């Protein structure tokens, strides 16, 4: 349907016809990882610890991504890596969103003094490097696990979400319709739910997907440093670290997990872009 027809039909259904390409491509990439991750729950090509082939074999029909230095199938480990990456990403973003949006909204509605204190605390937390914070949390708990990785990445992300939420919410609160709602007798929880959250949601969604990508990378970094999920949870970061020693003789060991990592992060970012356009009704008609 042409853009002109879409204009004429007004607020009609034309927008459903065209799926924006970032949403389609991003959804496809992320969807692929989700399918693979779910698949690993019931089936993998080989057992994760099986030494099924020779050491450092090149990719072949039997081993699509080759084997590692102990002869374990890399494809199997990469597929399980998808599950770990998505799990940590989801957990960290959910945790970060929960903490971040709550603090951000509270700060936006708070009195000036409390707002200043919260804003300063957030600035300090943001200035603190994510990896350092993660190491601190791992060190202060009893060893690295999936949980500590999620906690560390989630808390680090929450500061950024909180600051963004606070700024966006303040901008919405300056609008006349907020004053009108207050005059009509809506209390602040109602205003937050009815007006503020829906209006900042499109921007937050983009940020969440971006955070998801960053969380996946952060998880890989933690695993690379040995602070992520311990074996047998095959993480891409650990695969990359293990492949580093033999990167000149067997480069595929680093390339395959790298492709997996990049495809998921790019997919998430594209998906975020598409989602923003779909969530914002003022952008729909221009499509």
């Amino acid at each position: 349907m042409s853009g002109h027809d879409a204009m004429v039909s007004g607020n009609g259904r034309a927008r459903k016809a065209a799926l924006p390409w970032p949403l389609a491509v991003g959804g496809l990439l992320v969807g692929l990882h989700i399918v693979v991750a779910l698949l690993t729950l019931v089936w993998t090509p080989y057992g994760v610890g099986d030494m099924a082939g020779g050491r450092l074999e090149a990719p072949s029909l039997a081993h699509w991504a080759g084997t590692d230095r102990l002869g374990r199938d890399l494809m199997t480990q990469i597929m399980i890596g998808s599950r770990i990456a998505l799990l940590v990403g989801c957990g960290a973003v959910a945790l970060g969103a929960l903490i971040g949006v709550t603090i951000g909204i509270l700060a936006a509605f708070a009195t000036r003094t409390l707002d200043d204190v919260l804003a300063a605390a957030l600035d300090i937390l943001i200035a603190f490097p994510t990896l350092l914070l993660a190491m601190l949390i791992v060190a202060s708990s009893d060893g690295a696990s999936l949980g500590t990785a999620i906690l560390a990445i989630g808390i680090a992300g929450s500061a950024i979400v909180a600051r963004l939420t606070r700024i966006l919410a303040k901008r919405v609160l300056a609008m006349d319709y907020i004053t009108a709602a207050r005059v009509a007798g809506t209390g602040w929880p109602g205003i937050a739910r009815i007006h503020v959250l829906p209006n900042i949601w499109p921007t937050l969604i983009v940020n969440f997907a971006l955070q998801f990508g960053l969380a996946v990378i952060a998880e890989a970094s933690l695993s690379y440093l040995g602070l992520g999920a311990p074996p047998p949870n095959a993480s891409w970061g650990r695969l990359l670290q293990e492949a580093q020693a033999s990167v000149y003789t067997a480069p595929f060991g680093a390339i395959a997990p790298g492709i997996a990592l990049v495809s998921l992060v790019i997919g998430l970012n594209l998906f975020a872009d598409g989602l923003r356009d779909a969530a914002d009704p003022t952008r729909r008609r221009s499509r």
Partner: protein
Amino acid sequence: MSTLLSVENLEIRTAGRVLVSGVSFSITAGERVGLIGESGSGKSLTALAVLGLLPDSMRASGSVLMDGRQIVGARDRDLVPLRGRSVAAVFQEPMTALDPLMRIGGQVGEVVRRRAARDGRKPGRAEVDAQVTALLERVALPEPGRVARAFPHEISGGQRQRAAIAMALACRPKLLIADEPTTALDVTTQAEILKLMEGLVRDEGMGLLFISHDLPVVATVAERALVMRRGELIEEGAVEPLFDRPAHPYTEGLVAAARAFDAALETAP
């Protein structure tokens, strides 16, 4: 007639500066009052103080009795039940007066639901929809069904302002505060909205506090006018004598300017 709003010696100050001082006036039920003044004269601040919505950085003193309740110094939480029931407001900018991400029907419906909840009822979806349609018809919006499904950016400025008025009406307030509700509109639309507001206020028996810098507009809508300048109330009285024989030189200047403008328009080819 009972007194709806009584303002006594209102003063608004911000860090070391007095913005409004010594303002006293009252509005009885069903009375239509205009508040005139140039930009920065404190009209809108006075309105915000009456609503208890002054920014955190400003402090009000004196007394504002709305429907017998003290607004000045009251906590925001205590004012929530008062708002909507006693007072509602329509603002200047129709684009920002409506939530851009909510359909018109949803926004009006929210107020209808809130109002019903206050009366201790929980109306069904169909009842809310019916009331929304009735309200949109009440403000003379064409095709209320279509408008209810539209987002604010899909309807015109005049239609948005009508929707904002419908939201204010949904509260069924005793006093409607309109802060330059027609300034952002073109002259034809302005005239229609003014006529609509005057009719609605008269039919519903609401009090009206109409804020504007535009003399002819106030003369159309209000029975009584207050003139503000530099944060002080300098003159008040019934609209016609006030505009015919202004006592204060400033009012005289305003009237003369409006006359000269009209004359210039009439002699223009």
